[in-house]
């Protein structure tokens, strides 16, 4: 029995193992930038960088006591987004400079809610979520009221802080509202 067999590893075995180790190290080194690249959508929005103050228009465009559809261009967009970065929202001018700006997305599963001024209700076409004019849940499956954008009035113009699709998680940055009267 030779020395090599006793130690259990030949020179070639050792070289093959080192070769595997080298490839493993290369994979790890390659994986780091790839993972960073894949996580870019998270990193890019870190610390609220997906949200910006956006001009919705003159105050006069929103008559008191009414709720109107407003549109804005998403602050983070690319030239190849087409129409998808034109985002709608419902603006309710309660009185004077008191507003409520609701996301179009139903709090249930994100479908576009429609405003019915006659009955002062928002209705969702997907699963029948209904909200009162102040955005609180009236009936149906939504777990909460409509998502609301923070707003401010500057120089006679209505500004909202927006930029990301509101969901139950991504709304945390948007002002949370109480469930309101659940009827």
């Amino acid at each position, binding site marked *: 029995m030779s020395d090599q067999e006793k130690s259990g590893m030949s020179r070639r075995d050792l070289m093959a193992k080192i070769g595997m180790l080298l490839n493993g190290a290369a994979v790890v080194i390659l994986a780091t930038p790839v993972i960073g690249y894949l996580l870019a959508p998270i990193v890019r929005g870190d610390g609220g960088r997906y949200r910006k103050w956006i001009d919705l228009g003159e105050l006069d465009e929103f008559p008191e006591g009414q709720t109107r559809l407003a549109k804005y261009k998403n602050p983070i967009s690319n030239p190849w987004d087409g129409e998808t970065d034109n985002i709608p929202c419902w603006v309710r001018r309660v009185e004077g400079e008191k507003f409520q700006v609701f996301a179009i997305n139903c709090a249930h599963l994100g479908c576009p809610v429609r405003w019915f001024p006659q009955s002062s209700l928002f209705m969702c076409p997907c699963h029948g979520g209904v909200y009162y004019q102040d955005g609180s849940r009236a009936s149906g499956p*939504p777990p909460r009221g409509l998502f609301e954008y923070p707003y401010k009035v500057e120089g006679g113009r209505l500004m909202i802080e927006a930029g990301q699709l509101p969901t139950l998680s991504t709304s945390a940055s948007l002002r949370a509202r109480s469930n309101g009267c659940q009827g």
Partner: protein
Amino acid sequence: MSRLAKIGEWFDQRLQLGSTIRETMAHPVPRKSASWFYVFGSAALTVFILQIFTGIMLALIYVPSAGEAWNSLQYLNHGVTLGWFLRGVHGWGSNFMVAIVLIHMVQVAMFGAYKFPRELTWIIGVFLLLMTLGMAFTGQVLRFDQDAYWGLGIGAAICGRVPFVGAWVVHLLLGGPIIAGDTLSRFFAIHVFVIPGLLIGLVSLHLLMVLKLGINDWPMPGRLVRRATYVQEYHEMTKKDGVPFVPEAVWKDMFFSAFIIVCVMACAAFFGPYGPSGQPDPTIVQTVPKPDYFFQWLYALLAYLPPEMETPALLIGPVVIIGFLVCLPFFAGEGEKSWKRRPIAVVTILLTAVALGTLTHLAGYTPWSPIMNAWSGDPVPVQYLNGRSPLERQGAAVFQGKQCRNCHSIGGSGGLRGPDLDSVAVRMTHDQLVRQVLQGGGNMPAYGKNLNPAEVAALVSFLDTLHPANQLPARDAAQEDASPRQ
């Protein structure tokens, strides 16, 4: 030796594949397994190949850009010779693929084919099903129209329900803060590269295992699967009573596959391609988004789950279902194969099928959704207005004008969200109606703030008239002077 044979020999000398192919063709299958029940796997493979082929054809024209995808689909439909047909074949092919994969899975489950030694074949099959559904969803996204846009919104809303890391998951899914160019690009990559690549690899493995382990024997009641003896018994069976795969079994596979391809083409030719529906412009809010048929059961389920059940059902439900399917061969890997002696399996499959079928049927007419234009589109039936007082007719106008009709039907038209009101006066007294209108409840919004007293009085007096001619309206027994209302 003919020239053709010589050429064949030249290639085989270099490829060394001839003997493997000959072995595969001649490998014995149990005589009874050369059956029409065993054609669904090969049909799924055929449709998959059809999907790859038509997918490549569509990719010649399709532009995976949020700004241009919809236009390129219009161009495919109307500007490219037979582009509509290829879109139709690809779209209908996806329907057939989901259906055939499901039928294949039911057949395998009913025939106990997931039992020893074919456990891993089944587990890979479960993942093939998930990938098929993944292809169906991502394909629906690539048809970048309103349904695709809001379907993505629903996907994002579901991801947003993940605790703690929901926001990250949403941004990963969308590739950014909103549904936009980056979203379509990544779904294109997933639909065209990632899942097909995995599918090709896993389908090959799945197929190789069927060849190596042999096709499942026809289940006989009382012939039990035992780990110790099964493999030997199977080989004895195929040796004694086997038939060569080619041509005894394969001709049925080939007939059925050809039949399916003809069916897909016929559907494409008769019904045409799917959409695209309206442009993916989120500012067009007059839309009623709906998923394609293979996800409509989920769409229906999400309308019926109580709100507090929804997040657990969405996040834990899939884990439980996939976990159950993956573990099935481990806790039922031996014993009876015949469906005649596996009542629980049969009942489980039947109940699942009935549940999925019922939910899909309900999604066809979405009784949980308000009908957005019923208030302005459906007239009040004439017999509900004839001979009524002015106040009652005014009430009918309030009923329409305040969109009650969107959720409540009268005279057979209107929404189905709330109960129909044709005989509401029989069920509720005047006072109960007033209370219900003002305070809502039972999943109805309260209208107290939206109706003035005059409107309430008119509306309820109209509702009071809604009872069958031969049935008295409900009255409050506690009222002493309880003369029946008209």
